[in-house]
């Protein structure tokens, strides 16, 4: 389960000529992001699924990614990001900005 939580990313099946949007997963536990670093391909749209395992709500927020979404306790949220240029894009939990910090590394 921990392995699944840490670097859990899986490319959806490529059927025929067209590829589906890659999916990456993140968890919030004890106001921390697991993993706190996510590597995604450049110039590709990806789907981020963020699971909030805490009982308290959290808001996934990133100025660099232009994203913000409230995730209630014990729920999950889908967030599409990209296509992005290579670089580092920090994100944080607006309700716990001191601990809940992470970054998306586009390469």
């Amino acid at each position, binding site marked *: 389960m921990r392995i699944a939580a840490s670097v859990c990313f899986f490319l959806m099946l490529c059927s025929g000529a067209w590829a589906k949007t890659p999916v990456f997963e993140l968890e919030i536990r004890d106001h921390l992001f697991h993993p706190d670093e996510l590597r995604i391909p450049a110039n590709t*749209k990806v789907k981020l699924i963020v699971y909030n395992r805490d009982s308290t*709500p959290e808001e996934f927020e990133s100025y660099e990614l*232009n994203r913000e*979404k409230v995730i*209630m306790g014990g729920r999950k*949220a889908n967030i599409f990001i990209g296509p992005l240029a290579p670089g580092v894009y920090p994100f944080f939990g607006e309700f716990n900005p001191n601990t809940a910090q992470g970054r998306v590394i586009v390469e």
Partner: protein
Amino acid sequence: MLLTSVILVLREVLEAAMLVSVLLALSRHWQQSINWLWWSLPVGLVGAIVFASLLDVVTDAFDGAGQELANALLQGLLYCLILTIVVLSPSNASHKRLMSFLMAAVLSCAMIREGSEILIYVVGFASAGEHAAAVYAGSVIGAGIGVSLGVLLYSALRALSDDRIQATSMVLISLMGVGTIMQATLLLEQVDWLPAGRALWDSSWIVSEQSIAGQLLYAVFGYEATPSVLQIVLYTVCLSVMFGAHYFSVMRWGNLNEA
């Protein structure tokens, strides 16, 4: 926790406070009743409570896109309401009741969006125990600063001369209205209902979105340091519609008044 609460609540309150200041200044300028304020506050509050308590269900609707769709819808509604106010402004004297209703609706919409987030945060963390005092104190301070900034803007507008107050308020309210389109576009890109393109430019080296100036510009005009092509296109279209509609309305009512 205290500082987090101050910043979070201030960010949310600021947007509604700026809107309401301009609307109040316009009401006063047009010598209309400001009763709309007193009944839009409870409506907005109830709306925010309902929205916050349904957010679980809303978020999962439309294959996980519900939260963004609901917010984008509220933003779009705000744009339409403000557009109507702007169009009716030259003939405000003959639309007093409608104008009051529109202003109340604008504030209610803004409160549902901003208020629900504050509620989710405050209820979520005040119940978590040890931080309750900090959350409450921070929220009160944040709301206080937001409201003070609103009062400041209102006073500044009221201090303008009669011929300037109308033009300034119109420009401000129009830009606030179009700013909602900026945010709505982002929300729809976030759930892949609109295609997200690469950022057209990066102006964060001039005004960072995290800075105080950036936060203010975001609250008032929907400022984005790294907007997409689609955002800029929609923004330009909606801005043109807003100013164009106002221009034609002024022409029409100006001619009627002269006739």
